């Protein structure tokens, strides 16, 4: 959407909740009539998706501590619409926060496959990115991208909550550009 002009729901975001539904209905009908369905509906879905990312609430290693801290009072990831959910059926984002061993690999794949489309994966920390210090160990998957497709990598051992929030915001940029 980089070359497209800004769509009018930027203005909708500034409205009060009471006025939102009629205004959105009117603006969308006008836009669909003017530009065609695909050019309007897709940005709306992307806008809704990137502002309500639901990551899977699980932890693999010490990165999960930072993951938990990011949802606490000090960093408050919920202000970006990021709410961890306990069931993969309700999630569209998997944050792989820790060392992935071969023993847990097929469980990770099962959880990923249980998530509904569209879905994204963030590899958080050095272990999930490339195995980290355990890269040549007998039990560690050298990077979770061997198992599932990864959209954003966050470096750090472990990354600070600010880094995790930055990764989530970069994923939101990716979703903003999403075409299909």
């Amino acid at each position, binding site marked *: 959407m980089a070359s497209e002009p800004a769509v009018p729901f930027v203005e909708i975001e500034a409205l009060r909740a009471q006025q939102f539904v009629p205004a959105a209905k009117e603006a969308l009908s006008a836009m669909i009539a003017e530009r065609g369905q695909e050019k309007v509906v897709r940005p709306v879905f992307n806008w809704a998706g990137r502002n309500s990312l639901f990551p899977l609430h699980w932890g693999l290693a010490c990165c999960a501590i930072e993951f938990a801290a990011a949802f606490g009072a000090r960093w408050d990831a919920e202000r970006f619409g990021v709410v961890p959910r306990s069931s993969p059926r309700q999630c569209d984002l998997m944050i792989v926060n820790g060392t992935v061993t*071969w*023993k847990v*690999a*097929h469980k990770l*794949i099962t959880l990923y496959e249980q998530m509904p489309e569209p879905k994204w994966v963030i590899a958080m920390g050095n272990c999930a990115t490339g*195995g980290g210090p355990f*890269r*040549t*160990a*007998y*039990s560690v998957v*050298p*990077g979770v991208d*061997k*198992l599932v497709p990864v959209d954003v990598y966050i470096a750090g051992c472990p990354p600070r909550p600010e880094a995790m929030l930055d990764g989530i915001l970069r994923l939101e940029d990716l979703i903003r550009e999403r075409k299909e």
Partner: protein
Amino acid sequence: MQPADLEAALRPKLGDRLLTVEPFARTAGRVRFRRDGALDLFRTMRDDLAYRHLSMVGAIDWVDHREVFYVLWSDERTEYVLLSADVPADDARIETASGVWPSANWHEREAWEMVDVLFDHHPDLRHLLTPDGYAFHPLLRSFKLHEPEELEVKTRHV
């Protein structure tokens, strides 16, 4: 209990299957035994000498042979004792202790997958820490660290 007392108590039951009883720091001693006396030794330790808690089972790869060791604890004596048996590397097997102390079950599974010591009559000898079908015994001295890609090819489980 001193090593000499331990030997006096065990020798009538085990005969020459008991090798030596050595002093060992902060324990009643280290009992070295032949592996064909394993089950008799375990039962004697539990029933006659009141070592009712098996703290751990482990195995060590000494390259020319492997050693299986057991750490027992007695609440009544409030002391530890070590049991130790040597097994040859080309026929590394010993009778399971899990019929005498059920806590041996998982310890023996770990010792089997890490050091490749087979425990006869074990009720459930599956992989514990590594995935099913894992091709290596990582704590053997002969195990070399692999390149990740090589490990991925040899580890066929997902």
